[in-house]
């Protein structure tokens, strides 16, 4: 990939870009794959796959503590992935980056470790549109520690209800806000700076679940002013098995470790152990070495395209989808938030989302259908399921047109 960053992706850029994703030339049920399920997990460009293979073929060993060449090279590769992630998020130091398996583990780490510092009488505030990953860990914390779990409602357009958010913060009992930076169902991009400022005014720390957001826009944790930020490698064109927790250094320093084992200790006796400095304190055992290196490569790849170009491309796609999909008879777009990323949920009268997904699949088109790991949000929307099309940097307008045409045929098949 030697495309210079510029503002939007030309047709030539796009086909150059698509050529880097081997899977996009696969056929499904005899039809060309139209992959509109990137919000669940993105496809991987050649460079990421190659970086992982090359490491395993030429420079692999366990990291840290190894005094030999292979181990030193692997350690360097792993640690420089950490540096890349730190730069990517605008962290003030690379030590603020903790590698986890995924976003889910990153949030659970905070719920266990930071959560163990909370006391009954304190509260954690989430929102009505959270992914289960940013909901269930807080329920489990509530049941473990006896804190209160508060839920900020959303408006009918699918935006966070800021007034209610403010009210829920006002008694000063909220110790931590944990809210998504972008909804995986509605596409809503939440007003993160404002949420941070209001949380801090109320004396609360704030975690932003960036699993969807980092894919679509430049995130800078320093500018956001957040306290915790999480994301997951596989949605950012990177490997499975690797995720990221960013947290302010002083919070990481104050938090007790989460998992115990090798590499997270400073010294161990049977009586007691002392902990290694962060981030090692939070990375017990052999990490996902090759996957971290793959994620570093994915970030290089994404930044080489540039978020101006990615953002512009995805905004064009989303606008196009919001223009053509409502022309499909019986189709209803779910959520009309003020600011949104490349995710569009919809339902169709007389056709269940599962039937939509299966029939689209029969025509080569991959979308997701169900509750999208956001059951409480579904209940709020009075739906049991939606179909969801989500876009990646490789998605084309033509693919969205094929989606709309096929949906029209599916609908006429059923009524």
């Amino acid at each position, binding site marked *: 990939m030697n495309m210079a960053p510029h503002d939007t992706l030309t047709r030539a850029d796009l086909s150059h870009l698509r050529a880097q994703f081997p899977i996009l030339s696969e056929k499904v049920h005899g039809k060309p794959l139209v992959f509109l399920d990137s919000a669940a997990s993105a496809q991987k460009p050649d460079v990421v796959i190659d970086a992982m293979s090359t490491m395993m073929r030429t420079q692999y060993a366990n990291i840290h503590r190894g005094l030999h060449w292979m181990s030193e090279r692997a350690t360097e590769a792993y640690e420089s992935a950490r540096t890349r992630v730190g730069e990517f998020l605008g962290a003030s130091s690379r030590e603020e980056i903790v590698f986890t398996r995924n976003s889910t583990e990153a949030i659970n780490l905070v719920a266990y470790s930071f959560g163990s510092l909370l006391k009954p009488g304190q509260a954690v505030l989430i929102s009505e549109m959270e992914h289960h990953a940013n909901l269930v860990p807080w329920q489990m914390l509530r049941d473990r520690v006896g804190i209160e779990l508060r839920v900020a409602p959303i408006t009918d357009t699918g935006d966070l209800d800021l007034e209610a958010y403010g009210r829920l913060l006002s008694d000063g009992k909220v110790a931590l806000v944990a809210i998504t930076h972008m909804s995986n169902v509605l596409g809503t991009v939440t007003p993160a700076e404002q949420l941070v400022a209001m949380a801090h005014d109320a004396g609360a720390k704030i975690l932003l679940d960036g699993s969807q957001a980092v894919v679509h826009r430049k995130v800078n944790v320093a500018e956001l002013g957040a306290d915790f930020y999480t994301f997951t490698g596989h949605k950012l064109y990177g490997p499975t098995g690797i995720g990221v927790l960013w947290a302010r250094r002083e919070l990481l320093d104050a938090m007790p470790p989460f998992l115990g084992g090798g590499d997270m200790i400073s010294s161990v006796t049977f009586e007691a152990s002392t902990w290694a400095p962060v981030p090692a304190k939070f990375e017990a055992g052999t990490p996902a070495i090759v996957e971290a290196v793959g994620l570093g490569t994915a970030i290089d790849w994404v930044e080489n395209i540039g978020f101006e170009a990615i953002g512009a491309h995805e905004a064009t796609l989303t606008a196009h989808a919001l223009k053509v999909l409502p022309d499909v008879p019986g189709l209803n777009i779910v959520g009309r938030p003020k600011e949104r990323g490349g995710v569009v949920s919809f339902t169709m009268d007389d056709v269940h989302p599962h039937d939509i997904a299966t029939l689209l699949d*029969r025509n080569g088109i991959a979308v997701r259908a169900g509750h999208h790991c956001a059951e409480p949000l579904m209940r709020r929307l009075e739906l049991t399921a939606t179909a969801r099309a989500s876009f990646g940097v490789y998605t084309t307008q033509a693919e969205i047109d094929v989606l709309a045409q096929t949906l029209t045929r599916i609908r006429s*098949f059923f009524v």
Partner: protein
Amino acid sequence: MLNVVDLYGEQIVQRARKPLFAGVTEKATGTAQGSNPMCGDRVKLSLRATDACIAEIRHQTRGCAICMASADLMAQTVVGQSPAKALELAARFSNMLENGSTEEEAHESAVLPPALEVFLPLKSHRSRVRCATLPWTALGEALTQ
């Protein structure tokens, strides 16, 4: 052209649109509710049966076409049968969809009423199998209360 293959056959689409056994059984001897929290499919069954015979069976289904049609074709298949026979069919139906890897194998191993064969193509859509078996799971419950 829309590629629907044989998965959404005439029968399935018809039954999903206009179920023949929708409703509630009066003086029911057994009721059950099956639901799949993953997608929100829900089947409420009510039936009136003696040891010898299922006299009436009705369902209220909220779900996809597969689930709806399966509930309706199930009702049609088991009405008039003995509960024992119905339970045997339930086991055979699940077995047909969940095991065996080719449609051929399944055809051979399971002798099913022909009306239920419309679900065989589901074998290559494993993620949808539960939509079709849900009504049968509820039937098992309603009959063994």
